[in-house]
C-alpha cells in the first residue's frame, strides 16, 4: 500500500476551495493561456509531431477562432486520434446501428456509444459486456500492456454501474517457434493473469492463436462482462449545473503519455523529464479497491454520472462527460493529485495513468461520497463543477488554459472516407484452391490426427489457462476448454449467461465479408452449444493501416458482413472496439474481426458441457460436411497453405441449429455438445473424449455416404453449422424428431465409452496417447 493511495478526508474536502498556491513568475511566463493564444497567433506548434494533419490543425483554428493553446492542442490531438475518434472507421461502423431492427432492440437497454452496451437478461437483471484491444502496448511491454488491457475494459464495465464478473482474453501471436513469440507470450499471459487474478475476476475463456502474420504485432483483446439490476445502470454524462466533478482513484503520473512529452518539452524546456514512458503501468490492487468503492458509491446513490479514465485520460473524461451532459464544465486542473509534481498541464491532460475514475456528484451528496472513498482509502478530489456555459473551461492556478466547446473535442472530430480498393492479390489467393493439395491415405489418418492435435493452434491451451483463476466469485460453471464460458448471475434462480469469442483470421484473409460472418457464426454456435440463447454481440476489429486502401476495403467488407450477419441472426452489436495500424512495415496482419456473443440461460444448471462422462451415449453429428478446406487448419499444418475460399456461410442453418441446441439442452436431452470448427470432426472427437477421459467408437460410413465425402474429408473439413452431440440412447428418437422438425441434418456416428478413440476400419488411438500429444505442444515450445 503506497502512501499515495491513502486519502485524508479533510485535505480533500479542503480542495473544494482554491488551494491558494500561485505560480512563480517563470512558470507564469511559460504557461500558454487562452489569453496568450489570442495575441500570439503565429506561434509555431508541434501539431504534426502530435499526429495531427494540416487540415485538422486548420479546422481547430476554425472552431476556436484562434490558435489552440498547447493544452487544447494536447486534448484535441489525442481525442482526434484514430484510437479515440474512430475517424477512419466511423462511416462504416454506422451500419451496426442502421442494421439493428426494432425487434433486435427488444433486449437492449443501452446501445452503442456508451462505455459499454447493456442487455436485459430477464428477472430484473442486466448484463453489460464489451471487448477491447491493447495490442501495441503489449508488443512494447508485454506484461504491463496486457495487464492494463484488462484494467481498462474492467473500468468500462464498472462505469456502467455493474459489478465485473468475468473476463475472457482472445490472444494472437506470431509463429510458436519465432523468438519474438517467446519474448511476448509469457509476459502477456502473466499480465492477463496477474491483473485479472488480483481483481478476483474469473477468466472463463478466450483464444490463443499462432500465425506468422502477428509476428511483429501480437493481438491482446480482452472481454469483460458485468452484471447489475436494471435500476443500477449508470451513464457517462455531466448534468445539473453546480454538480461537482470528482476525480478519484490513483494519482496522475507521467505514464502513458504519448505525444504530450513533445508539448511539455516545448513548454517547459528546463522542467520535467524529457521522455515519458508511453506504456501505462498497472496496479491491480488499486483497481480492485476502486471496483468495490464504486459499487458502494452506486449502492448509496451518490453518483449522478460516471466515466472511467482510459485512453486520453482527463482529456477524454472532461470532454465526454461535458459533451454528453448539459454541455458545460469548469475544472481546476491544478487540483489533480500527482505522483510526479513536475508534470506540466498538457501532460496531466493526456496522462493515461491507470485506476482512475471521474464522477459527477450533487453537492449535497459530497459528504456521503467522501465517506465511502475514505472507507476504501481511495483519494478523491473535487476538480470543478458542471456549468451551463456550453464551454469546457480548464484552469491552471487560476489561469484559463482551455476554453472549448466540448462536443468538438469528444464527438464532432474529423471523419474520413478513406479510399478503398479490393487488393489485386486477392484473385490469385482465392484461385489457389486447396483442391490441388495431396490428400492422405486412409492408413495415414491416425498419424494425421496426432500431428493435427499436437499442432500449435489445435493443442491444449491448458498451459495458458491454468495460469488464470477460473473459480473466484463461485459462479463459474463452464470455462475453457468448453465451447463457451458460462456463469451464474442470480444465485436463487440460476439465471446466467454464456459467452464465447471467436475469429478465424485466415477465413477473413480469403474473404473479409464472409470471414466476419464466419467469426459471428462460430461464436453464436459456441454459445448455443453450451445452452445459451444468443442475445447480443460485441466485436474487436483488428486490422492493418486504414491508409492502405486494401486494408480499408477489408475493414469495410468485414463490417458490412458482420452487420448483415447480425441482422440475419437477430442479434444486435452493443459495442466494441476498432484497432487499426496492426502491421509490421507495410505488411498488415490478417483482418481479424474477433466476435463475442453473449447468450442467456434461464438456469445454468441446464448448461451442456463439451464432453461426456458416461459410456453408452449415442453420438450424433448435426449438419452437413463438404470438401471445404480453404483456410483450414489441415491445409495450414500439413501444407503451409492458405488459399481458395473459406467454408460457405449458412446463417439460417446456424439459427436452426442454435434453436435445436438451446431447447434440447434446456429440456435435458443433451449429455454433451461440442462445436466443429478448427480441425474439423477429428479435433472435436478428441477434445470431447479427453474432456472427462471417456472415449468413443464411431463409424464414418453413414455420414460419408450421405454427404458424398471420404473419411478424410469427414474428419478434417471445416464446414460450418456442424455440432457433435451425445444423447442418451432412449432420447435419440425424440431428439432426431426435433432435428427433422427444424430441418437440421442428423446422422448417427457411434457410441461413447472405453479408453480410446476408434474410427471403425480406420484407426484406434488410446486416450493416453491423445492426451500426451494434445498437451505437450505448448509447454514444449514455451517453457524456458
Amino acid at each position, binding site marked *: *500500500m503506497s502512501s499515495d493511495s491513502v486519502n485524508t478526508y479533510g485535505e480533500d474536502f479542503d480542495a473544494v476551495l482554491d488551494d491558494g498556491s500561485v505560480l512563480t513568475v517563470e512558470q507564469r511566463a511559460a504557461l500558454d493561456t487562452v489569453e496568450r493564444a489570442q495575441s500570439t497567433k503565429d506561434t509555431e506548434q508541434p501539431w504534426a509531431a502530435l499526429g495531427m494533419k494540416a487540415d485538422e490543425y486548420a479546422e481547430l483554428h476554425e472552431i476556436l477562432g484562434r490558435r489552440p493553446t498547447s493544452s487544447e492542442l494536447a486534448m484535441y490531438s489525442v481525442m482526434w486520434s484514430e484510437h479515440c475518434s474512430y475517424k477512419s472507421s466511423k462511416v462504416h461502423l454506422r451500419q451496426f446501428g442502421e442494421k439493428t431492427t426494432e425487434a433486435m432492440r427488444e433486449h437492449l437497454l443501452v446501445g452503442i456509444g456508451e462505455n459499454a452496451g447493456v442487455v436485459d437478461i430477464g428477472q430484473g437483471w442486466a448484463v453489460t459486456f464489451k471487448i477491447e484491444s491493447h495490442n501495441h502496448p503489449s508488443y512494447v511491454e508485454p506484461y504491463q500492456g496486457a495487464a492494463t488491457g484488462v484494467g481498462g475494459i474492467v473500468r468500462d464495465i464498472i462505469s456502467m454501474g455493474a459489478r465485473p464478473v468475468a473476463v475472457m482474453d482472445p490472444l494472437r501471436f506470431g509463429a510458436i517457434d519465432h523468438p519474438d513469440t517467446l519474448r511476448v507470450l509469457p509476459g502477456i499471459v502473466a499480465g492477463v493473469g496477474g491483473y485479472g487474478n488480483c481483481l478476483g475476476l474469473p477468466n472463463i475463456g478466450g483464444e490463443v492463436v499462432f500465425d506468422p502474420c502477428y509476428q511483429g504485432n501480437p493481438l491482446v483483446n480482452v472481454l469483460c462482462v458485468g452484471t447489475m439490476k436494471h435500476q443500477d445502470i449508470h451513464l457517462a454524462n455531466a448534468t445539473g449545473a453546480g454538480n461537482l466533478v470528482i476525480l478519484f482513484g490513483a494519482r496522475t503520473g507521467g505514464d502513458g503519455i504519448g505525444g504530450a512529452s513533445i508539448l511539455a518539452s516545448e513548454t517547459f524546456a528546463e522542467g520535467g523529464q524529457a521522455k515519458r514512458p508511453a506504456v501505462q503501468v498497472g496496479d491491480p490492487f488499486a483497481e480492485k*479497491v476502486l471496483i*468495490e468503492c464504486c459499487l458502494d458509491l452506486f449502492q448509496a446513490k451518490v453518483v449522478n454520472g460516471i466515466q472511467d479514465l482510459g485512453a486520453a485520460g482527463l482529456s477524454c473524461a472532461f470532454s465526454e462527460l461535458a459533451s454528453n451532459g448539459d454541455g458545460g464544465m469548469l475544472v481546476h486542473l491544478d487540483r489533480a493529485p500527482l505522483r510526479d509534481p513536475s508534470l506540466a498541464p498538457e501532460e496531466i491532460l493526456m496522462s493515461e495513468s491507470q485506476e482512475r475514475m471521474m464522477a459527477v456528484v450533487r453537492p449535497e451528496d459530497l459528504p456521503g461520497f467522501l465517506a465511502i472513498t475514505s472507507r476504501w482509502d481511495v483519494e478523491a478530489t473535487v476538480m470543478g463543477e458542471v456549468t451551463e456555459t456550453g464551454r469546457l473551461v480548464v484552469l491552471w492556478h487560476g489561469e484559463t488554459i482551455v476554453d472549448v466547446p466540448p462536443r468538438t473535442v469528444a464527438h464532432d472530430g474529423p471523419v474520413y472516407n478513406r479510399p478503398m480498393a479490393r487488393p489485386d492479390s486477392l484473385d490469385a489467393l482465392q484461385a489457389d484452391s486447396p483442391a490441388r493439395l495431396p490428400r492422405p491415405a486412409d492408413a495415414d489418418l491416425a498419424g494425421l490426427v496426432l500431428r493435427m492435435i499436437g499442432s500449435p493452434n489445435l493443442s491444449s491451451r491448458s498451459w495458458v489457462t491454468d495460469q488464470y483463476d477460473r*473459480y473466484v466469485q*463461485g459462479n463459474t460453471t463452464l470455462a475453457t476448454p468448453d465451447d463457451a464460458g458460462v456463469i451464474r448471475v442470480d444465485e436463487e434462480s440460476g439465471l446466467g449467461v454464456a459467452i464465447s469469442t471467436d475469429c478465424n483470421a485466415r477465413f477473413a484473409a480469403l474473404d473479409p465479408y464472409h470471414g466476419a460472418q464466419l467469426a459471428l457464426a462460430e461464436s453464436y454456435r459456441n454459445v448455443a452449444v453450451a445452452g445459451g440463447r444468443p442475445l447480443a454481440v460485441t466485436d474487436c476489429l483488428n486490422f492493418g493501416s486504414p491508409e492502405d486502401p486494401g486494408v480499408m476495403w477489408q475493414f469495410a467488407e468485414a463490417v458490412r458482413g458482420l452487420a448483415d450477419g447480425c441482422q440475419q441472426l437477430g442479434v444486435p452489436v452493443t459495442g466494441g472496439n476498432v484497432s487499426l495500424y496492426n502491421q509490421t512495415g507495410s505488411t498488415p496482419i490478417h483482418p481479424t474481426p474477433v466476435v463475442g456473443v453473449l447468450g442467456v440461460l434461464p438456469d445454468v444448471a441446464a448448461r451442456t458441457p463439451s464432453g461426456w462422462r458416461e459410456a453408452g451415449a449415442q453420438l450424433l453429428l448435426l449438419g452437413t460436411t463438404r470438401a471445404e478446406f480453404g483456410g483450414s487448419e489441415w491445409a495450414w499444418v500439413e501444407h503451409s497453405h492458405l488459399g481458395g475460399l473459406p467454408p460457405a456461410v449458412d446463417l439460417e442453418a446456424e439459427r436452426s441449429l442454435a434453436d435445436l441446441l438451446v431447447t434440447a439442452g434446456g429440456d435435458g436431452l443433451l449429455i454433451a455438445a461440442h462445436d466443429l470448427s478448427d480441425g474439423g470432426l477429428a479435433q472435436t472427437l478428441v477434445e470431447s473424449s479427453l474432456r472427462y477421459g471417456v472415449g468413443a467408437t464411431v463409424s464414418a460410413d453413414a455420414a460419408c455416404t450421405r454427404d458424398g465425402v471420404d473419411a478424410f474429408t469427414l474428419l478434417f473439413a471445416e464446414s460450418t453449422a456442424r455440432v457433435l452431440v451425445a444423447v442418451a440412447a432412449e432420447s435419440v428418437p425424440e431428439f432426431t424428431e426435433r432435428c427433422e422438425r427444424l430441418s437440421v441434418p442428423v446422422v448417427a456416428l457411434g457410441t461413447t465409452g472405453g479408453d480410446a478413440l476408434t474410427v471403425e476400419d480406420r484407426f484406434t488411438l488410446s486416450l493416453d496417447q491423445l492426451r500426451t500429444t494434445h498437451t505437450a505442444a505448448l509447454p514444449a515450445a514455451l517453457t524456458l
Partner: protein
Amino acid sequence: MRIGVVTFPGSLDDRDAARAIRLAGGTAVPLWHGDRELHSVDAVVLPGGFAYGDYLRCGAIARFAPVMDEIIRLAGPPTAAAPGLPVLGICNGFQVLCESHLLPGALIRNDHRHFICRDQVLRVESTSTTWTSGYTAGDEIVIPLKNGEGGYVADTATLDQLEGEARVVVRYLGFNPNGSYRDIAGVSNASGSVVGLMPHPEHAVETGYGPESDSHGALSGGTDGLRFFTSALQGVLSA
C-alpha cells in the same frame, strides 16, 4: 452459529467463503480489516485474495491490520478455561496466519514460478482439528487450488514436529503443484483450532461450481470442501 469472514482491501474470495458458511448452515458475519472487535463471532475465516495488494511478502501487511490484533489475541495458545478461537486461513489467509505466527512456516513463490489454477487431489491427514473433524483420516478429496505463492516451507525440526504431532492437516496427492515441502497443503496449531491451507475448500461446496469429479473420477458433485465448514459448525455446537 456465527462465523466471521474478514475483508481486507484486496480480499477476493470473501463473498465465496461467506456463501460456503451459509451453505453449511452457519451465519456469515462480515468483518472489516479496520474492525477492533469481532462482533461476537464463534469462529473466523481469513479468505483468499491479495490483501493490500501483497506487493510486499504475502500477508505481511495484513498481519498488522487492526482486526488481526483481536484475532491473534483470541486465537493464541488456548487455556483449559478458554479454548482458542477457531480460525481457518485459506490461501492468502494461510499466508496471513503464518505471518501472524499463529501457524509455523511460510509460503513462498511456486517452484515453477507461474500462478497455477487446478483441481487438486488432497489426502486428509488429520481429523483432530476444528475444521476437519467431519472427515475420515485418509479421505481423498478434490479441492480447487489457485495461487502464485503457495510453496510451504519450514525448517526440518518444525516439519518433523508438525508430522509428529499430527498437525499436517492435508497433503497434496499425486502432484505437488508448488514445491511445498513434504507435499504439505495445510497445517494446524497445536490444539487444532487454527488451520491454514492453500487450496480453496469454499470453491468445492456447490454442485456445478466446483471441481468436476472426486479423486476417483466419479460424480461427487464437486462438494468435497463443504465439510471444512460443517466440521466447524458441529464442533462449535457440541463445544
